[in-house]
């Protein structure tokens, strides 16, 4: 299969590979996909007091397009508010990377990973708030 230049570029020089402390309250972690399907993405965000994503990291088990989709996703969400990040659609990723139809699921997975990380962050914040209010 021929890959687009952008997929090759991201797969060979992936941005933001790494791990954030998942026990940190300001970190949201999304883990999506399944090994048996050949794709697992873990995307993490670190959100500042102002609701802006200060840092994003990923690790992906998957094909070149899956790696490129998650790499691009971390690049895009850094510096965005979580509401803005949540608005990113898989079709934006498809368009940017010129993914062929058989690789669209990679972009879907990247969108799911962003949403899942944000949901985890929000759940942590809600739990923290509940604890703080409970203490009052």
């Amino acid at each position, binding site marked *: *299969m021929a*890959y687009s230049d952008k997929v*090759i570029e991201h*797969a060979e020089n*992936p941005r933001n*590979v790494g*791990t954030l402390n998942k026990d940190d309250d300001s970190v949201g972690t999304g*883990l*999506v*996909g*399944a*090994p*048996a*399907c*050949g*794709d*697992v*993405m*873990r995307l993490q965000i670190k959100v500042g007091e102002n609701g802006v994503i200060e840092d994003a990291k990923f*690790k*992906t*088990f*998957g*094909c*070149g397009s*899956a*790696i490129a989709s998650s790499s691009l996703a971390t690049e895009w969400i850094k510096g965005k508010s979580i509401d803005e990040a949540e608005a990113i659609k898989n079709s934006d990723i498809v368009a940017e990377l010129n993914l062929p139809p*058989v690789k669209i*699921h990679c972009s*879907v*997975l990247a969108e*799911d990973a962003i949403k899942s990380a944000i949901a985890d962050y929000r759940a942590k914040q809600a739990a923290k708030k509940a604890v703080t209010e409970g203490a009052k």
Partner: protein
Amino acid sequence: MALSFPIFMDYHSTTPVDPRVLEAMLPYFTQKFGNAASRNHAYGWVAEEAVDHARERIAKLVGAQSEKEIVFTSGATESNNLALKGVAEFYKDKGNHIITTVLEHKAVLDTCKRLEAEGFRVTYLPVAKDGRVDPDDVKKAITDQTILVSVMFANNEIGTVQPLAEIGKITREKGVLLHTDAVQGLGKVPFDAQAMNVDLASITAHKMYGPKGVGALFVRRSKPRVRLAAQMDGGGHERGNRSGTLNVPGIVGFGKAAQMMSEEGEADSAKILALRERLHKKITGALDEVHLNGSVRDRLPGNLNLSFSFVEGEAMMMAIKDVAVSSGSACTSASLEPSYVLRALGVGDELAHSSIRFGLGRFNTEEEVDFVANLVIDKVQKLRDMSPLYEMFKEGIDLNSVQWTAH
């Protein structure tokens, strides 16, 4: 010698034409271009003589009793179709049952599916973890309706060599015909149709340094005499078994390739086996969680099928693009399903997705093997640094205990 890229390590898919083969073929394109079926002039005689010479060389490699047992075709897919459909049609009054294995090439499996649609019953035998068929399973599956057993000689993905001689004893004793798709193993591991009681064997030139587009079907002519219903109607070439003008240059090249296999195959295999062992040792010496798919013992010398846990096969192939290999990963197949061969071994889907098939051959060198081993080690480490699964594995998390979101 300087390395040239990409390094070819996909010899199960095809092989380059050996220069000596090409040299033998060339006159038959331009000067000796006659139709081997032309009986009335020298052009035809010359072509026919060349075809007969090739037929003898191929008969010798297969272990046929007579060169008349070689029927030329366009390749192994046609040979498999002719063997299965030809036997089924001819012997349908004797029985309607065929036995094969889950590991066969699609050219056999899909032909069997077609025959099932036409009313034949097909038993697909399972294989053990090493890919071997149990001859006892063959014995148990044979009924009074069984007309044919078809078991491949060596598998194209995992290189497992089947116990064909043992199966041949059983089929002969039971009076059932035995066909084998011998494409991958012929010339590389000992094969003898006569000694193994094989009745039909599919072979092809381009897996043994001959040209593409030419193959043959060995059809036994005595004890027992195998009959076929022709699947191609026309001029009645190949004793009525396969009509169509013979591909004379291709057949000449096939004959030359077969002769070279008869003479050099054993030495070739020893050299290739040493290269494979070198590659395997270097890789497993440097990386953990690398699994060999298939049999350690009963294996094609050039085959090394490895699963690199926590790394996906297509990403791996992209990372090692300086070497031409193939993968059992779903992402590399049109069907988006991981390899059915690896699944049949009971290899989990995750390991099937992580598999890479290295196929070594005549023209690989130690220098190439060392380069590829180092490249693989470096890239697997990089991809694992990027793999959430490897991180979880290192933390001691049992990946089977995680609730994954299948998609």
